[in-house]
């Protein structure tokens, strides 16, 4: 029973990460900008949140949660302007920019953390930040189930995303810009503004997803390792979820489950008895992702103008 609860716990927390980041990607792609840089945005968001925990270790639980969220979102948003500026105004190749952002995020975060560590203690040239005590403020024990506030926050953000996307003027306009920006412009929508909103929201949610990820199951993070392809797993969740918030929520649970299995499989007697090497469990989410995409990409519902730079006069 305890292991099932543990599995549920890990599934929910990893699903929260994937859902947040995939929803971020969803806003950006609906506005017409492909965000391959989600991985880098996650790293920067994780850095922002971890720095807040590092600098203000004495905050009370509600303040800590708010401050960490604010820190990670702020870093994510600032970092996403790199994509917004180049993709919206300079019509740069969004795939190259995203790839560069992923590499830059890891390099920049490593440099910042190493510098901080070395200034605090010259004999500590690592890129690891610890937040053992701070992390406990995010957890609530419900029996043997460790509830993490981020699970609830992610659920709320999912509900908001659904309402925003389908029930508000902003959401419908955003989607118009990703489908046919020239038509949207012809009825007076500012495509540039809409695309900026999409990119910045993806920075906000991607950054938040980053801090949730580095607090899932561990209480320290080595920034040299980045976020292990989670930004790309989130993109797969988004594609499998057909760019719709509710379906993204469901597919995040599926992928979260396979990721969680790698952490807790040792608790299940029958899985241990199968004697599968542990690295195979590490591979599992990526293998599942590849298989799922193989069967779902054919009917992709990607926005029509996704990734195509907007030119005002073009028809």
């Amino acid at each position, binding site marked *: 029973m305890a292991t099932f609860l543990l599995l549920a716990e890990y599934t929910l927390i990893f699903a929260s990460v994937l859902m947040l980041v995939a929803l971020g990607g969803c806003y950006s792609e609906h506005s017409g900008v492909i965000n*391959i840089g989600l991985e880098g945005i996650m790293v920067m968001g994780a850095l922002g949140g971890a720095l807040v925990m590092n600098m203000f270790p004495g905050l009370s639980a509600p303040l800590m949660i708010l401050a960490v969220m604010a820190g990670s979102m702020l870093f994510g948003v600032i970092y996403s302007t*790199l994509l917004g500026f*180049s993709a919206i105004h*300079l*019509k*740069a*190749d969004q*795939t*190259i*920019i995203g*790839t*560069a*952002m992923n*590499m*830059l995020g*890891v*390099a*920049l975060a*490593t*440099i910042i953390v*190493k*510098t901080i560590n*070395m200034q605090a203690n*010259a004999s500590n*040239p690592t*890129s690891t930040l610890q937040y053992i005590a701070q992390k406990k403020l995010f957890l609530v024990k419900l029996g043997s189930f460790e509830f993490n506030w981020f699970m609830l926050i992610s659920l709320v953000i999912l509900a908001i995303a659904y309402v925003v996307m389908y029930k508000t003027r902003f959401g419908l306009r955003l989607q118009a810009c990703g489908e046919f920006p020239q038509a949207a412009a012809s009825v007076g929508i500012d495509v540039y503004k809409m695309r900026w909103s999409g990119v910045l929201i993806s920075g906000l949610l991607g950054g938040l997803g980053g801090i949730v990820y580095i607090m899932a199951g561990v209480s320290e993070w080595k920034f*040299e*390792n*980045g976020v*292990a*392809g989670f930004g*790309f797993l989130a*993109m*797969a969740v988004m*594609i499998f979820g057909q760019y719709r918030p509710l379906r993204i929520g469901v597919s995040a649970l599926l992928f979260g489950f396979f990721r969680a299995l790698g952490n807790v499989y040792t608790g299940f007697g029958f899985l241990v008895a199968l004697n599968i*090497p542990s*690295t*195979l469990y*590490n*591979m599992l989410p*990526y*293998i599942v*992702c*590849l298989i799922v*995409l*193989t*069967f779902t*990409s*054919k009917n*992709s519902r990607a926005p029509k103008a996704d990734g195509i730079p907007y030119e005002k006069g073009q028809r």
Partner: protein
Amino acid sequence: MEKNKSFLRNEGVQALLSSILCIIIGLIIGYIVLLFINPQGASGAILAIIKNWANSSRSTLQLKNLGSTLVNTAPLLLCSLSVLFAYKVGLFNIGASGQYTAGIIVALYGALALHLPWIVCMVLSIIAGAIVGAISGALKAYQNVSEVISGIMLNWILLYAANMILSSVKEPSDIYTLKMAKNAPQAILPTLGLNSIFNNHQYVGIAIPIALIAAILVWIILDKTKLGYELKATGLNKNGAKYAGMKENQNIILTMAIAGGLAGLAASCLYLTGITEWSCATASVPGMGFNGIAAAFLGGLNPLGSILSSYFIQHISMGGSFVDLSIYPSQVADLISSIIIYLCGFVAFFKLMMNQFLDKKDAKGGK
């Protein structure tokens, strides 16, 4: 005047100027970051990165370090060719790292466990890379799976596969694979006497000419053959190629297989020299494939430009190890190369600005 104008309008010259601009801006931003960390040593550190092998005081040591840079440039050049080849056909081969890792698995396992000669290991690593590339290609061609996402997923799958498979040929008390020189001398790449040029650098050898020949071959295939023409046509418009009677799906798979083969070859060109071992506790995908993306774009997507840009990127990354590591993290070099890739996204914009500037100048001259 007339001659000068046509010179600046030349595609190749513009590509070169854009790349140089990217490099200069990248270095300036790197310098600013160094200033933030510690203003006193910043100038020394950026110079150390730029000088790389020239940091050593003795000429013998300089030659040795230059040799090491070249040994690492060969696989980088092959990875950049892999990215470039796919990109010319409209595919973004971010999976080069995974194809490269597949090559490492096969090359090292073949050498250390099966005791195969080097040429067999090399061919096998090309095949392994090609198979991984072809998987991405087939998924793209038949199931519309984005090659970017399948590439990333395969990168991670192969990373874990490498840790799992190669732990059977690692040192018993260590995480690294067995030393090539001691355990698989038959699989070490021949030096062809090249090592004597670099002060008897034992790792300098056939890999460097192989990479150069590959660059020339890629250039010939893409620009001078029917195959290259068909592949590029498929990349420009898949339906158009189909209408013209080309096998468009096969072309996509073939492209990714060739790209994967180049990345697989890169792996054997590095690991079969014995200069480095695989750590079976590696936690992140090898950066070689990603640096290949940087080199491909910095080289203006030209195979011959890749030769220069690969050397430059490798030069900068190895230069990172010469900075004072008690003050500055060596990742400053990674930072510079990632900023350079970011700027490469603007190359089209740079060229546009350049042409607008020239147009204005011409209009003035006309009056």
